[in-house]
């Protein structure tokens, strides 16, 4: 398998691991880490594709990293806010609003 193909395959596997982490884990911090894993898997795809398709993909990766950093700031602040109310970050115990 060529380099591009294997890079895309690895990226798809990491992305799936991230999705599995979001769906299976109940700790808000770990769910958030899984989401970061998804974003970085996509970054790997962009970089691999940019090797053939020109610099647009690399530019995109820089934007994604900036967005992910901003998302971490907002997300961790929100998780701290819920911890102050509930003394836990377990998503199964955060259930005042029953869906």
């Amino acid at each position, binding site marked *: 398998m060529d380099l591009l193909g294997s890079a895309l395959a690895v990226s798809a596997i990491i992305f799936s691991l991230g999705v599995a982490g*979001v769906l299976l884990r109940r700790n808000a911090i770990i769910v958030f880490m899984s989401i970061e894993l998804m974003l970085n898997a996509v970054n790997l795809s962009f970089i691999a594709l940019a090797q053939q*398709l020109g610099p*647009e993909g690399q530019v995109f990766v820089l934007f994604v990293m900036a967005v992910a950093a*901003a998302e971490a700031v907002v997300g961790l602040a929100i998780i701290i806010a819920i911890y102050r109310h509930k003394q836990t970050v377990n998503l199964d115990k955060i259930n*005042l*609003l029953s869906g």
Partner: protein
Amino acid sequence: MGMAIDVTTPGGFVLALLPELVLTCWMLVLLVAVAWRHRDEGDQQMAGQLALMGLVSTLLVVLWMWVKGAYPETLTGMIALDGFRYATSAIFLIGAILVVMLSLGYLGRERILVPEYYVLVMLAAIGMLFMASGADLIVIFLGLELMSMAIYVLAGIDRRSAFSAEAAVKYFLLGAFASGFFLYGIALLYGATGTTNLTQMHYQIVTLGLETNLMLLAGIGMLLIGFGFKVAAVPFHMWVPDVYDGAPTPITAYMAAAVKAAAFTALIRVLLHALGASDAVWMEIILWLSVITMIVGNLIALAQTHLKRMLAYSSIGHAGYILAALASGSERGAAAFLFYILAYTLMTLGSFAILAAVGTRGERDVRIDDLSGLASRRPWMALAMTVFMLSLLGFPGTAGFIGKWLVLSAVVSADQIVLAVLLVIASMVSAGYYLPVVMAMYMKSAPSEDAHSGSGLIGAARWVVGIAAVLLLLLGVWPNRVLDMAADGAEGLRPAPTRILTD
């Protein structure tokens, strides 16, 4: 003809981004103002009024560009200059203006003292404007993230409320999860076509014959999952009731109206403009999404006893109707969408304004039965709520009817008769939860003497309800002018399939 803008020159670029720049400048001014004065309710009122001025002046800039008919000299810029952008931008700004007016009294009553609130509302509006103006997936992605992040914070802005914090956590985790899918979809589309520019993507697909390329199809699928979460289509809707329920009511209205409209706007531009050549694939998916969204949203709404949750589920049903317009895959459908979201923004904001007014002891707890006898105590409020409910239902004489009729005619002209029939049935089912609200207000007597003594519209919220109700009736009986504007806004959204790339 209109005003040609050469986006390759700095001056032209500034002109092309004028609404975004104006709003950003106002936002920065407001940020400095609230960093300087943020001690009491008076400072917060000042922040709200500054935000209002910023949003109104941006709306004027957008309308000016639309009247001037600004269009780009080159085909493949990152910023779209077309009627669709101006029309949707104007609708988002109207939504944001009404939300700020609603918040002026609400924040004071609930004793929420956070003047940054208005900065975040404006930041979200800037994100929406970028989603409307993005002709490149990078711009659309950044606009989406800017909007979403401001809304995550706004959902949890009431720091004393555990409900608000819980809504923020749920919205944040699912929103970021959806962004991951959205981004992966972009990466796959980029991999298949070699570009993130929507116009170039269309020509690449046509010239290279990529209509059913596997990577492109996977990209479309991922993109639709991401958008599905943002527009709250079934089966990606499970966050909606909880988040709408827990967030402060003006923010719920903002999420249900403007945020959803912005996500739909970007979705329509991507599907019609960039992926129009593969429409056979996505029209089928959108059709089924629309069908299950209409059915599930309306059926669960029937079972709700609390007004806020009922409105949350009804907004899912409305996402289904808008998806039906999109399933027609035509500019006619896009025009129907434009009219529909204008009406939808007005009726949603109006009904949430009434909810905030009657929910003086916490709007989460307002049951539909609690509205009993409102008509005798607060006749004008009950009348306005009746207008909103009938418009949401799609009753003739209101803007909601014209909107649904436009969607229906777009669906029928695309020969999707089954979808049209389901849409009518879903609308009839929705009478089962809109009409009980009207019945409670007019046909039941108030449970006690002082039942509605505390409820009342505060300050500018009165204007929100008044403007929304009058506009809905006006658009219901005299829609011609706005219909022309909607048709104008949707024109040229689908690029001609045969045109050759010129640069």
